[in-house]
């Protein structure tokens, strides 16, 4: 198994851990954390392909990961603010109970 494949296997497993957490937990904060794990797994892929790709000197993967980290930080801040706002109005952080807009 080449090192690139090892990196990709690692990031796939991390993605699936995040996916399992996001799908099976009902606490909103844990679901957000699972989504963050999936984002981080995608960043691992960028770095792996940059390291073992054809043009490591170009640095494209590194720059992509930097922008992805910045956007993920903004997403985490807004998501957790939404959790706090929902908790203030409904006194719960369970996803199933935030169903006002359910058809």
């Amino acid at each position, binding site marked *: 198994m080449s090192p690139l494949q090892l990196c990709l296997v690692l990031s796939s497993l991390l993605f699936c851990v995040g996916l399992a957490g996001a799908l099976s937990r*009902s606490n909103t904060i844990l679901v957000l954390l699972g989504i*963050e794990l999936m984002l981080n797994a995608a960043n691992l892929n960028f770095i792996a392909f940059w390291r073992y790709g054809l043009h490591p000197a170009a640095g494209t993967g590194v720059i992509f*990961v930097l922008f992805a*980290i910045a956007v993920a930080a903004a997403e985490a801040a807004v998501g957790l603010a939404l959790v706090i706002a929902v908790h203030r109005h409904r006194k719960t952080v369970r996803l199933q109970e935030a169903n006002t807009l359910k058809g």
Partner: protein
Amino acid sequence: MTTPLLLIGILLLGGAGAAMLSRNLIHSALLLVGAWAGIAGFYLWAGAEFVAFAQVLVYVGAVSMVVLFAVLLTRQGATTAPVEFDSFQRAVAGFITAGGVAGVLLGAILGTPMDGPAAPAPAAITVKQLGAQLMGPHAAALLIVGVILTVALLGAILIAAVDKPEDPAP
């Protein structure tokens, strides 16, 4: 070459899996800090030092604090009640879906011949080169990311701020 990667991977997956299975939210958040630090270790292993430091600053430092604040602000009651899985059916469905996705991804990765350069040169991109690229060809994207961060943080403050108590209706 691959032994450090295996160690990092075991720490990373162990921390993330324990965080997703834990019944205590605080333990989950702290285990995830460990997983994020493991990701920074992976970046160091791969030779992307600047990204590793950015990961430590942003995730281990900032996002973890925001998560802990959210956990403490949304705690119900003084007791640290365990956060149960919602329903057995939902948990099983989630794990089956994740396992299926893992199977498909691993099959695709292991079934693809990836014979890159036999011994890839240690990709050394210095911080100076990175800064020149960020300020040169990617300057517009950098500015846009700055605006996005500012707007998102202002919006987060507005969303999470406490409403003023309204005057009681006469």
